[in-house]
């Protein structure tokens, strides 16, 4: 399949995630949208990795593997971020019994 399909698919996923972050009010859903953005990037990286691999196969058999390596690092970092992020959301829920970010206006004044 041409690379364009992958590019458009992951850009679409990324945009859905971005719009979700900017418009939703529930902290958990915002969080899911951020994960969607990261996964769109993962998909794109793997697709590019394959593309570069096929293109330069004759020159160097291991070309393109670094893109897939990067995906693993993103997964690890995302996992670390999830653990911290959910802890923060739980901490907030304990105090105000809600995960609605409408409550996040104490600092404005």
């Amino acid at each position, binding site marked *: 399949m041409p690379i364009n399909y992958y590019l458009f698919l992951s850009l679409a996923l990324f945009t859905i995630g971005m719009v979700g972050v900017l418009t939703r009010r529930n902290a958990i859903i915002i969080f899911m949208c951020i994960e969607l953005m990261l996964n769109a990037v993962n998909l794109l990286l793997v697709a590019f990795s394959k593309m570069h691999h096929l293109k330069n196969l004759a020159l160097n058999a291991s070309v393109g593997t670094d893109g897939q390596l990067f995906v693993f690092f993103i997964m690890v970092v995302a996992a670390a971020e999830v653990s911290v992020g959910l802890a923060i959301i739980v901490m907030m829920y304990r105090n105000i019994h809600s995960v609605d970010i409408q409550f996040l206006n*104490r600092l404005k004044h």
Partner: protein
Amino acid sequence: MNLLLLAAFWGVLMMFISLSGRSHATIRLIAQVGMGLLFLSTLAEMQGFLIYDLKAAEMFAMDRYGLVMLSVLSGCGFLYFLLSGRDMANVGSDYSEYFSLIFFIFCGFVLVLSFTSLLMLFLGIEIVTIPLYILTGSDKRNLKSNEASLKYFLLGAFSTGLMLMGIALIYGARGTFSTMEVVGASGIPTRLLLGGLFLMFFSLAFKVSAAPFHFWTPDVYDGAPTVFTSFMATLVKVAAFAGFLRLFDHAFGSLKTTWQIWAGAVAVLTLIIGNITAVYQQSVKRLLAYSSIAQAGFMMLGLYGLGDGAREGMVLYAASYSLATIAIFSVLTRMNDYTIEGFNGLAKKDPWIAGILAVCLLSLAGIPLTAGFLAKFYMLQAALSAKYGLVVVVIAVLMAAVSVYYYFRVLQAMYFRAAEEGAQFPAFSTGFKRVLTLIAILILVLGIQPGLLLHYLYF
């Protein structure tokens, strides 16, 4: 790379010490010794001494500039531990872990200052920010702290997403993450590469709180426990800027004509928004948050006029801004009243502290004979060489004049207002005063002889 190994080791050490149930004084002493060692090990590395020679040039390679920056950061970190180490105990019960997280953040600093692959830039920035989310929310019962950490977390993760998309697009364009090869020899960028470049530009502008991506900063800095705001607003911001400069210097240097005008626009916008909004603040903590945005505008000028002059200016700015802000925050943490009125009459009660605060405020405002003046001067000089430099410099100077107004409001409160009845000022210990005096001396010495610091860049 000495610092990377030592900081990682000390971070783990601090975690185990919390299990052993030592007293606060012991924990603090160990942390201070550790940070002192980090500083000394960086100085030693500048003389060519390496604990272990990490051969990973494809991932990160430390250069002279990174080492000087790192020694400024670890030196300021050491002073920060000396001044504010005691106050961290008031935030919550996990005293040792706070130090541990700060040591881990220093590991991130090393990566941000030495990356040669975009992978390491990403990891470095994440190692810096993830512990910061925790530190911001460390005052668990305080709703403001909760709110600040959630806000910081959601926006930080969002900007990380943007950065990753940028990296992915760049990878698609060139098939490599190495900063040296990201832009091809032809120097003509493809659309994918340009898209990636601007996504990275925006996300890094987010991290260093440059306008129009600054809106999270005042809330987060205000809500976080004051001891940690001090750390976030100084060392973290400076390190993020150093990484920003390094990326655009090493990787996108040959595309300077494309992004330079954007850097200039962001710098001007940051200067205007930061300075004008700071004028209306009543709380010193919030005022310092806006002042940090305004100072970020000046540091953006370093990116705008990127070159040798800007690099020197960046080191000087890092030192002068961090020293002054850490000192002001360390006093602010102990004050009972964070409003500007809370400083009324401090000069009568404690002339020594007030004098040192005055030096720091003057340095932030950029009055001659202080380090802040020369730092601003270097940045303006660098910006002057760029396209449309004159316009940008005129706006920057005007905004520096505005900044004098709000820094002097604090000065005026300290010196020319009588303390309100029943106002309580904290007692400052002699050791605390000695460290503050050292900071004031450093600021003045750098203001007269910047070469003392800058010559390390070359020799």
